[in-house]
């Protein structure tokens, strides 16, 4: 397994990230992990049939980092994984912009896949982020807080 201390595993940031740079960091000096799985989430152009223009991401600084560190620890207990990186953006984001990145390396591809999906599923229900969408509804631009999906809670429950 790669030394973990070399990487800051969690980054909450306003600025965009570069997938290639993140993957290069996960792979650097890491010749034993043959598998790398990445997840990238982007702002979609619609939600529940409404056209989305942009969104604002709010979070609970301090708790966010703690909850994500806790999720990574749980993933490490369950699977044999090497390096992990979670990036989550905050602030104003427009269509197509990257919101979240999760990268996991492992000797075994299944561990990398499972740990990555687990991290995303738990992040969705445990990490204190909230999205406010600016949507066009019947010609009007309105802001609304996104409602949590029960399917997300169900997905996270599947791991327990």
């Amino acid at each position, binding site marked *: 397994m790669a030394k973990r201390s070399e990487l800051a595993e969690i980054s909450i940031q306003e600025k965009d990230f570069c997938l290639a740079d993140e993957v290069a960091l996960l792979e650097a000096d890491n010749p034993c992990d043959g598998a790398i799985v990445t997840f990238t989430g982007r702002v979609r152009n619609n939600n529940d049939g409404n056209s989305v223009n942009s969104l604002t991401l709010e979070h609970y600084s301090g*708790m966010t980092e703690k909850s994500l560190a806790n999720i990574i620890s749980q993933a490490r207990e369950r699977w044999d994984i090497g390096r992990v990186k979670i990036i989550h953006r905050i602030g104003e984001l427009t269509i197509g912009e990257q919101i979240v990145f999760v990268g996991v390396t492992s000797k075994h591809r299944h561990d990398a896949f499972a740990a990555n999906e687990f991290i995303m599923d738990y992040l969705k229900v445990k990490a*204190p982020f909230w999205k406010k969408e600016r949507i066009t509804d019947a010609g009007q631009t309105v802001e609304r807080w996104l*409602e*949590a999906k029960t399917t997300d809670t169900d997905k996270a429950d599947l791991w327990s």
Partner: protein
Amino acid sequence: MIKIVFFAALREQLDCAELTMDIAEILTVNDIKQRLGDKSEQWQQTFSNTSLLSAVNHDMVAGDHKVKSGDEVAFFPPVTGG
């Protein structure tokens, strides 16, 4: 004294991001909710929403979790990140 913070839709509904509360004895998170609800009709209604989540010192907790002076308590709607 404890610090209480609110986020997202809840913060907007209350028009309040943060407040402090003096507590003499040890209270549960539910006790604190109750006290906050006592502030006004609107707060009462807001805190009757059973989907609200609670955290103490950055850990998600259940309603029976005990809060002591110096703790940071947070209330917020279900999270929607990722």
